[in-house]
């Protein structure tokens, strides 16, 4: 028996959270779009408190997403918001903007901080920098390869979180780009710009709106707008289930399944499959072998327009 990594995911609603806990999730990142980026659904402070009540008795942890790039107005509300999360029993704050670190130091000293600057969390020295300033976990960029991930784990005392499944954000603009395009075409955008709170449905679906680049006709890049601007997502879904032991062998602390833009059924299946892999590996690392049925269950629900890929784990990039 080896130490089990945390299986972390997102949730669009309390209902989805219940089902994903049943499926084997150990922790959730939730929040509201004012403070967090690209959330599967909206959880205001009261709902986060509900989520904690639902999660804690089952040994499940709740992390609040405060990883937005904060504006001056939002900064003024951070101390109260952070205090309310602290009082609700939230297990950690996920931050990218140093303003959150500053606010947390005074509003809730001692509260765990996870550093997540998305595509710019790229090396262990910088993770250690934020560790010296209070972070206890680094969320590594999805654009790193396996060697870089393993090396980061070896050179930091912070807990290391790595995304292992789902789409990733590849572009974030503050500009309302779809809206502007439609205006340019003299059409108005009739789509709702905000998901209903607790609707039980994902905020947007991956095929609701997408981009295609002329030389890559088979790749669909989901695009959506919200209060934080325009988000473009990867055309493939990261899927490391076959290679999860490479991350578990070195003790990666948290494995993240991103459930954004996916149905509850899909996320439930994915969580269950990764749960099975983690449990099987940790019960007997030496005798562990991957079983195709775990992947097959995911493939059955996988949108055929979206490839399951290894992301950047085995790729070389130039610059």
């Amino acid at each position, binding site marked *: 028996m080896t130490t089990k990594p945390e299986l972390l995911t997102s949730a669009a609603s309390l209902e989805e959270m219940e089902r994903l806990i049943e499926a084997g999730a150990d922790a959730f990142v939730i929040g509201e779009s004012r403070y967090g980026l690209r959330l599967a659904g909206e959880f205001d402070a009261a709902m986060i408190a509900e989520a904690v009540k639902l999660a804690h008795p089952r040994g499940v942890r709740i992390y609040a997403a405060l990883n937005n*790039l*904060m*504006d*001056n107005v*939002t*900064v003024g509300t*951070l101390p109260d918001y952070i205090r309310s999360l602290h009082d609700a029993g939230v297990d950690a704050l996920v931050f990218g*903007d*140093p*303003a959150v*670190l*500053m*606010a947390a130091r005074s509003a809730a000293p001692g509260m765990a901080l996870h550093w997540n600057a*998305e*595509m*710019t969390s*790229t*090396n*262990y*020295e*910088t993770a250690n*920098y934020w560790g010296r300033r209070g972070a206890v976990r680094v969320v590594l960029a999805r*654009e*790193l390869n396996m060697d*870089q991930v393993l090396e*980061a784990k070896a050179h930091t005392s912070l807990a290391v979180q790595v995304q292992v499944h789902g789409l990733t954000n*590849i*572009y*974030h*603009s*503050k*500009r*309302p*780009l*779809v809206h*502007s*395009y*439609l*205006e*340019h*075409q003299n059409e108005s955008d009739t789509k709702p710009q905000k998901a209903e709170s607790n609707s039980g449905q994902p905020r947007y679906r991956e*095929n609701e*709106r*997408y*981009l*295609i*680049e*002329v030389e890559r006709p088979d790749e*669909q*890049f989901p*695009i959506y707008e919200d209060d934080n*601007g*325009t988000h*473009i997502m*990867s*055309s493939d879904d990261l899927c490391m289930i076959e290679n999860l032991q490479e991350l578990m062998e070195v003790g990666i602390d948290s494995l993240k399944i991103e459930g954004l833009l996916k149905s509850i059924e899909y996320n439930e299946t994915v969580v269950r499959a990764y749960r099975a892999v983690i449990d099987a590996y940790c019960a007997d690392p030496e005798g562990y072998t991957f079983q195709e049925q775990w992947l097959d269950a995911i493939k059955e629900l996988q949108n055929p327009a979206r490839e399951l890929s290894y992301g950047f784990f085995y790729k*070389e*990039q*130039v*610059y």
Partner: protein
Amino acid sequence: MSIQTKPRYTGKRHRLSKPELLAPAGNLEKLKFAVHYGADAVYIGGQKYGLRSNADNFSFAEMKEGVEFASRYGAKVFVATNIYAHNEDIAGLEDYLRALEEAGIAAIIAADPIIIETAQRVAPKLEVHLSTQQSTLNWQAVQFWKEEGLPRVVLARETSFEDIAAIKANVDIEIEAFIHGAMCSSFSGRCVLSNHFTDRDSNRGGCSQSCRWKYDIFEEDLPMFSPEEDKFTMGSKDLCMLEFIPDLIDVGVDSFKIEGRMKSVHYVATVVNAYRQAIDSYMADPEHYELKQEWLEDIHKAANRPLNTGFFYDTPGAEDHIYEPEDKQAPYDFAGVVLSYDEESGLAVVQQRNHFKPGQEVEFFGPHGTFFKQTVGDIADEAGSKLDAARHPLQHIVMKTEHPVKPMDMMRKRVRP
């Protein structure tokens, strides 16, 4: 672009002190022209750690020469070390930063905290300026960086005048803002399109400008466009705040930054020249300041994209993006640079930078408002042989100018209406 005569930003005046004009310099020649045309400081890239891996970039020897040249004008040289480092980039960082300090570089522009911290430790004479790649939008984040010992923050391009005023009101620190040039349409650093499309790492200098490509957009698998309509793009118009110098000075921006380490020497000289004159004119007499039409005209002579005001007044909308096919040609081309002038004969020696010939309309311009148009008369090589055209790159051409000119004045020719 319409001419704005009144300030659009009506917030409280912060203070009135002369801002730094900070220009890009892709190579040593561009550095010299940027400084000569009025930049108070220039920023360059070295061989490593910069975000323009395709630019010429400076060797340490070139940096030293650049620093020496700039110091004659009282100007400073900054080096962009603005990548987000990967594990393997960190080896060699200390030596590199020490070498920058040794070369007399005044500051580095850095985004990755490990580069910031390492510079503070091993090269304490280097100032560290926080790069726009950190996408800093709020005063509390600025306060954080001040407490970390940084004297200057380059704000995110998404900050408005209100944001800048709030930051200046809360934190005593130098604020640098982009005022001219091309813009990422994403939050800087928050884009890995190149990584996904071309396996090039955008945050280490490999940006393929995929935001300027054209895309088809679909909703529920149906196209949101008809075949004759413009395609979707994220590509932004370029920033130009020349018309709003008083607003920028009044709100307290300490350094006015021009984008463009990849731009031509003609572009850099032209843009610096226009902003230099506008800033000096406003500072000399703020009450009676008027924007001169010719400054704006000059900008358009070198501009290769339509211009806008970014996020300063409002979030960019449909009119701020480039949906039509891009025509990146500037209407004027750099034709030559003056090497010397003989007052007695009125003859100048001009180094050829582009084809020109007798009968062509050209403009001469230089720092401090030197400007006139003329028709090219007879031209000759230095041996005195008459030429029908200046064909050879860098050839020295002797020609008569209608007014006195000085070394480093430039000659441009119109290449399109």
